[in-house]
């Protein structure tokens, strides 16, 4: 079925305990696409990511991965279907080494994928140089590379990145964008990323959704992304 989307989200409601945040989120990602989700602080982007991976329960609506309903599965079972989640703020395992952090990521596939460690080291050489250093002592940019390398270790078919550029130097942001675009072109890796950094959005996104007050309020094409002023208007108050 070539027209089954990689990810289909329909009428998703969710939030924290009694506090609703998502108010009926609808969007989809096709096979091999890189899609950005943009919006101001506090509109529910991170809540959406956590609800997609299953760290927060959805109160209503559905999530389908390649046609399979996944919103009733626990987070680790969703991950094992090939979803790599990179949380906002990175959340590396601080008292484990860089290498150990990477090895935990193998749980996504449930096995060691031959040659994957070498590939990840190829994308992010710093992770090889610092292999035995404790992850909590890395800089923000290095931790972000580690958090992305960690999910790539499990050979995911799609990744969810929550504000990968936050608090990171521009050259590292560009490097990460280049690697994600390259992986997408070579392997068809699907990418959904939440972002507020215009350069990163324009460097990576093929399409873009705008989120406001717990809903998707606009859908932008690649051509729309070249309109700097319009993009900026969605991100600033």
């Amino acid at each position, binding site marked *: 079925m070539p027209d089954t989307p990689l990810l289909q989200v329909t009428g998703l409601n969710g939030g924290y305990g009694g506090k609703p945040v998502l108010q009926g989120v609808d969007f989809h990602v096709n096979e091999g696409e890189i899609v950005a989700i943009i919006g101001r602080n506090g509109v529910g982007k991170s809540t959406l990511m956590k609800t997609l*991976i*299953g*760290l927060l329960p959805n109160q209503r609506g559905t999530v389908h991965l390649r046609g399979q309903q996944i919103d009733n599965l*626990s*987070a*680790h079972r969703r*991950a*094992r279907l090939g979803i*790599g*989640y990179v*949380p906002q703020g990175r*959340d*590396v*395992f*601080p*008292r*484990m080494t860089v290498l*150990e952090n990477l*090895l*935990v*990521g193998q*749980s*996504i*596939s*449930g096995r060691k994928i031959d040659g994957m460690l070498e590939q990840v080291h190829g994308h992010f050489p710093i992770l090889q140089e610092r292999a035995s250093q*404790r992850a*909590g*002592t890395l800089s923000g940019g290095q931790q972000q590379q580690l958090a992305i390398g*960690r*999910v790539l270790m*499990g050979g995911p078919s799609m990744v969810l990145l929550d504000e990968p550029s936050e608090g990171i130097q521009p050259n590292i942001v560009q490097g990460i964008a280049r690697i994600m675009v390259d992986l997408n072109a070579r392997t068809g890796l699907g990418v959904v990323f939440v972002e507020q950094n215009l350069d990163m959005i324009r460097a990576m996104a093929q399409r873009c959704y705008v989120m406001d007050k717990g809903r998707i309020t606009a859908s932008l094409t690649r051509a729309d992304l070249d309109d700097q002023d319009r993009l900026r208007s969605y991100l600033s108050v």
Partner: protein
Amino acid sequence: MVDSLNLVFSFLYQFGDAFAFLVLSACGLAVIFGMMGVINLAHGEFIMCGAYVSTRAAHAGVPMPLAILLGAACAGIAGMIVELLVIRRLYQRPLDTIVATWGISMIVTQGMLILLGPSMQGVGTPFGSFVVGGYSYSVYRIILMLSAVATLAVLWLMFTRTRFGLLSRATIQVPHVAEALGVNTNLVYSVTFGLGAALAGLAGGLYAPTMTLVPTMGASFMVEAFVTVVVGGADIFLGTAPAALILAVIKAGLTSWQGQLAGQIGLLIAVIIVIRILPRGISGKILRERG
């Protein structure tokens, strides 16, 4: 000269004996507290379970080492069942787990009293004794010391060299991220609780030949276990092991100087001092300094 060598040997023996008891009593409690934040007041009953099962097995003709491992395994399985039925429902509610495990402890001790009576026939301490400088020492106590060191070594290998160790350390550090990376964190918690209970059972099995088997026997391990875990903090290798070393010096010193009671009082004073200056124990201090 020979006299002072004898004195040194006597102190080392006392120290090793105290160290073994502190380590073996505490490591199950430390694993469960350090990995899961659960204060398991039923720890003593898992010890009792290991002691009863291994003694029963020994009476039935199972060789001692195997009987002890069987006791540990049964305590471990009991632990996984308790985790599944009770503890799992109480994560993030530490006070409730204290009350629940206390309740389990009372039910089990009273239940055993009703089912098996006030005491059970033990097996005598094996291997006899040896003499140094006119004093006689138990060979089995030396085996207990070696068992304590071996237990620490096996735990260290398990936590640093195995996949389970890797995933369990990830799960304590950032549980939601471990789960989101495909780690079945519920299973990790269940196995960890089972491991802690099995270590308690191992202590029970190892010490069974040296004590009277009564349903409340677990209580005689609890002071040492808690003192060691409080002084050590949440980490077994950075906390429990060094705490056991320090406390064993205090206990052995005071015991050989003023007797058993002074040793016990010394431990309690040590724990009060440590709580004042290191509220998160030795390992809490080390980990904070490392950042």
